[in-house]
């Protein structure tokens, strides 16, 4: 096992621009030895490091079986701004993987509802790709015994929609529902306009048999969870990916604490009922 407190080097193989402020970076680990031992699960994150600038926690947006480790990054702070100026062939530092993952064992024989807001779709793409690649698509006989699968995704405008070109492929396995806060009149948009909570009315699902994976702005996840529970989805079957100021990744720096949880090691993926008592508390 490599030492997770020391970054290893990884080379950017290619960059795909997703939206005006978001791009996907495919990384290949430089050291053969680390390549062999590095494994992750969908939902985990890496600390990306730019010497002289700093580190940022970024979720992994590729599936474990993808050839490259992908990160879908929106420009937000110093590190992500710096990364946005890099090119294929450039080297960055990586530590990880850290944290908990989406509980794939929970979705066996059940329906899966993926709910994402904004760049929150990045860690969920890891699950989506994993399901597609492990034979969850229509075209190949399903090896993962999952029932109905839904993706509910909301973005600010159609132009801010990440992975838009990949949705047709997702439709092999998922029913996809899209919404935007505001449609751009100059662009053709056939999806919904309005809050993502409104999408629930369009979806015909069995609440008692559904497992929910959600990632996005905290307020969105809170109101969505409230609605889902009102509709009868058990709180134990809702999984939330949280964001905090992850700094060390190992539960020793204290920055990412959310109530008694360290988001970096106990999370980022939490069972709703495990953090319920702290979700509504202001400034917790």
């Amino acid at each position, binding site marked *: 096992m490599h030492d997770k407190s020391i970054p290893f080097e990884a080379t950017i193989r290619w960059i795909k621009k997703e939206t005006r402020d978001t791009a996907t970076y495919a990384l290949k680990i430089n050291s053969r030895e680390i390549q062999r031992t590095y494994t992750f699960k969908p939902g985990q994150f890496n600390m990306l490091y730019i010497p002289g600038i700093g580190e940022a926690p970024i979720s992994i947006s590729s599936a474990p079986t993808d050839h490259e480790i992908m990160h879908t990054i929106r420009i937000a702070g110093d590190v992500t701004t710096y990364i946005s100026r890099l090119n294929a062939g450039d080297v960055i530092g990586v530590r990880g993987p850290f944290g908990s993952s989406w509980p794939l064992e929970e979705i066996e024989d059940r329906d899966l509802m993926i709910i994402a807001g904004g760049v929150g779709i990045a860690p969920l793409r890891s699950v989506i790709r994993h399901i597609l690649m492990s034979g969850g698509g229509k075209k190949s006989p399903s090896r993962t015994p999952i029932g109905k699968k839904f993706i509910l995704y909301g973005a600010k405008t159609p132009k801010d929609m990440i992975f838009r070109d990949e949705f047709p492929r997702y439709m092999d396995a998922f029913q996809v529902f899209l919404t935007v806060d505001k449609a751009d009149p100059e662009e053709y948009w056939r999806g919904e306009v309005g809050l993502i909570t409104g999408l629930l009315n369009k979806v015909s699902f069995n609440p008692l048999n559904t497992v929910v994976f959600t990632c996005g702005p905290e307020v969105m996840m809170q109101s969505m969870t409230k609605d889902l529970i009102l509709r009868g989805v058990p709180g134990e079957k809702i999984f939330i990916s949280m964001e905090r100021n992850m700094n060390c990744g*190992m539960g020793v720096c*204290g920055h990412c604490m959310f*109530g008694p949880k360290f988001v970096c090691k106990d999370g980022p993926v939490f069972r709703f009922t495990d953090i319920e008592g702290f979700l509504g508390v202001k400034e917790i």
Partner: protein
Amino acid sequence: MTKAKIKKDHLKLIFDRLKTSHKIIGPKVEGNVIVLAKIADFHDIPAGYKEQQGRGTYRLGSGKEPQTFSFSVGPDSFKRFMSPPVRENFAFKKSKKGISINQNSSRVREISTAFIGMRACDIAALRLLDKVFLEGPVKDVGYDSLRRNSLIVGINCLYPGDNCFCSSMDAGPEIRDGFDMAVTELDDSFLLEIGTARGREILNGLPIDEVSDKDLSEKVSKIENCKKMIKKSIKVSELPYLIYRNLEHPRWADVAGRCLACGNCTQVCPTCFCNSSYDNLQLSGISKKLPELSGARIRTWDSCFSTNFARVHGGNFRPSRRARYRQWMSHKLAYWIDQFGSPGCVGCGRCITWCPVGIDITQELEALHAR
């Protein structure tokens, strides 16, 4: 042999023995405060000193007490040495060709350090730090090597400080485990209890006496007496729920009105472990042959009272002092129980003494009872 006795004048012999093979860290007066520092001479130990501690006050007395160890804890604890305030994680170089990270720079070899005069609360706190740095998903290599290179000579407290409440946290005043040697000051001698083989080695060839039942009962009664003198307390049985039930209690706003968010309490707390890392850059690149950029990644103590402690790109999760004080106290007395199995407080009282406005954690907790 697990117990021995040494004449009062002969305690120095133990010190001299340790000095031959160890760097010695122990209590010493610096700037009218008893700190933990390197001790070169046995007489550096502030024998006979007694300090007065209160809410937000610390006054060192004259040093005329008849007992050698009549003083209590100062601002320093093991934390300063095991998880130093500034530490290098690794060094890096960055050039057009790429980056290189040199982790060997962080593996500094430490000579063995003997910590003398450590109190029960300090040793209890060190065992809490072990849980954080050694028993998590990734072992902290730097902490581990410092910890393993240390020898601990504890002193049983017979005179509590004015802000102490170790007895309610089950952390003292008696040292029960985690020591190489524990010393109790009896009327006419020092009682030595041996915790490890290394502790026993120190005594080889020194003039020690056998321990009688009378000596042991003298120790017991002195420690019982010390417990009786402890003034402050916390009801641990109410934790963590007293806090979990009261996350929106009006007292948090009240204490925020007094708290300066200076972070003193977190710096003197022997278990507050929070830290931040940043890159310390060296300017180079004068010649094209030199790397464009080089430096080191440094880890420093941080505090949950820092304004930006919970900042992420989109905003700050804890902008108010109310939330930051609540975070600190809730972590100490409630979250810690969920995280590591016991409260993160050992009742040393440092946060009370060194708070510039005299906020008292035992009172703040008690106030949560009020409706």
